[in-house]
């Protein structure tokens, strides 16, 4: 695609200072490490990885809740720093994981959904109420829930309210952080269908963070695999799920338990040791857990290789490295 991506990350790094012990000197924890990503309009980028790999920090940076330590976030080709937060919030909205804690229990549904409109001073009382009713219809909730409190609603209904609140501002980009993992399977499928319908109807762009790979495979168009703050592989859904290239992506896919009783529980050979992000391993971050690791991986960090099959950060797929070691 030739047009400007709606959302672009250029070498974004986010570092926290973690103090160890009472008198310890703070150590840097690099939660997001030099991430470059592009989202085109209408894309659904699935972001997968284990807990602690930096998925949620990346989402916070995108939402403007955290400023990147270095690098740039661009919306429509314009650097994020140049726009004010309010303008950004109109265009990027979040849907969080837990619909039980992300809705204010003391507010009625109509006030919860109307809040973004009020904050941004959109329209008057009457037009706001109309907008709330319209969006409620879009997410498939009956108008009678308007005066309910969140506690009177089921988990699936609450997640629909959360989606309505995100969409009432007509954003272009929606950041979904584990939107269905707190829900039962029968409800999960309804919410996934709804997200798919809304994307087609409003031309939305999603960043879809999930550890459920089957869900990502189903909904996403592109997938980025994250490990210890870095994107180790990014490609189309078909490429990743049919032929994963990075050994970590392969291990992740192998761990997925499809409901097939003829198959056993897989042996991933990954070991338990998710590395400590304060003290990451030398060379390739994944080498202590990698079945294909060589001497080179211990000392030299792989570079990102971008080719027709996507981006991958692994010596195995770097032709130059293969030549020098051969």
């Amino acid at each position: 695609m030739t047009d400007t991506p709606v959302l672009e990350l250029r070498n974004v790094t986010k570092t926290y200072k973690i103090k160890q012990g009472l008198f310890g000197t703070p150590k840097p924890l690099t939660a997001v490490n030099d991430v470059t990503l592009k989202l085109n309009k209408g894309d659904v980028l699935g972001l997968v990885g284990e807990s602690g790999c930096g998925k949620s920090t990346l989402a916070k940076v995108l939402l403007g809740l955290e400023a990147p330590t270095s690098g740039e976030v661009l919306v429509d080709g314009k650097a994020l720093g140049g726009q004010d937060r309010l303008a950004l919030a109109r265009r990027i909205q979040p849907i969080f994981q837990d619909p039980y804690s992300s809705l204010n229990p003391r507010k009625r549904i109509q006030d919860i959904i109307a809040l973004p409109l009020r904050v941004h001073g959109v329209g008057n009382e009457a037009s706001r109420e109309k907008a709330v009713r319209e969006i409620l219809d879009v997410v498939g909730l009956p108008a009678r829930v308007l005066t309910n409190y969140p506690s009177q609603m089921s988990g699936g209904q609450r997640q629909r309210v959360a989606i309505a609140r995100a969409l009432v501002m007509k954003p272009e980009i929606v950041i979904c952080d584990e939107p269905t993992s707190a829900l039962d399977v029968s409800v999960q499928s309804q919410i996934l269908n709804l997200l798919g319908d809304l994307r087609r109807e409003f031309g939305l762009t999603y960043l879809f963070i999930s550890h459920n790979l089957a869900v990502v495979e189903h909904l996403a168009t592109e997938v980025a695999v994250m490990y210890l703050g870095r994107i180790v592989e990014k490609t189309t859904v078909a490429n990743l799920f049919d032929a994963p290239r990075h050994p970590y992506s392969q291990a992740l896919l192998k761990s997925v338990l499809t409901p097939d009783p003829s198959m056993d529980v897989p042996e991933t050979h990954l070991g338990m040791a998710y590395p400590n992000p304060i003290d990451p391993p030398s060379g390739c971050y994944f080498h202590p857990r990698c079945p294909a690791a060589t001497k080179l991986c211990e000392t030299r960090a792989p570079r990102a290789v971008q080719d027709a099959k996507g981006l991958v950060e692994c010596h195995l797929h770097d032709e130059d490295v293969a030549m020098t070691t051969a």
Partner: protein
Amino acid sequence: MTDKPILTVENLTIDIPTGTGTLHAVRGIGFDLKPGETLGIVGESGSGKSLTSLALMGLLGRSIKTRATTMEFDGVDLLSASARAMRKLRGARMAMIFQEPMTSLNPAYTIGDQLMEAMTLHGNASKADARKRAIDLLQKVGITSAESRMTQYPHQLSGGLRQRVMIAMALMCGPDLIIADEPTTALDVTIQAQILRLLVDLQKEFGMAMILITHDLGVVARVADKVAVMYAGELVETGPTQAIFDAPSHPYTRGLLRCIPLPGKTERGTELGTIPGIVPSLVGDVSGCAFRTRCAHATPACRDAIPVHTAPGVRHSFRCISPTGFAEADDTPQSVEASV
């Protein structure tokens, strides 16, 4: 492996008194389990899976009424057993692995203390023996430098490690039955696969029976020998795992399987199946099929008593007014109202 079941449950009913009437949380369920066998109980939240496991362990509060025709563990009637007799069983011969490794370990005691507690309490080991077994088991569940972990506190361990500690703790007294309530739900996929692998291997090694409670059909398919599908306090379908996944007979079981995207089978980006409606209230009189409010094939006959159909030979049975469970009909809901 013997053929005699170690656990037999028949007609288990759990009633919870509430302000607005009695909540019939579990209604007349039954299953049995042989040594070395794994039963997977599948169901959504509120279906009564966890209550069933707590009832087996004798951990339900006194206000909750538990009744059963039979609830027997290796010759001991769990319903009439004294508190003392239950204490002797619990932790020693029946052990439980809870869902949340974050909240089910005591933050104020070391891993070692918590591991050794059950064994020394049951009086069949000295402190030194208990310590030795704890270290052995920690190594067995794949925890490196087990000796130094013994002096650590739960907050110093990651979620995966804590769940491993929970498993080691359940195994301390060499139980005959393990009840694992969503043992991997709070964990990453990679860790989930490893923990399940570990559970299955240990179960084989020690010949334990296991009840695995989960909402994840993938976990059940891979781990369980037989499956019980629970809906609104009832077992709607039970049978050998292969039979259930090959020929799901109850409309609810089929609905559940349609709801999840199946890698390699479901076409990417297509509409997923749904089960419209919500779980009915179980307060007050409950009759007929509880699933009728969400079933595409519901007829007035569903309000009456529901017969159980059993496929010959394989012990695959389900409750439905149709002897085929409407397997030949189209399950697509006629009107999808988004009530959830």
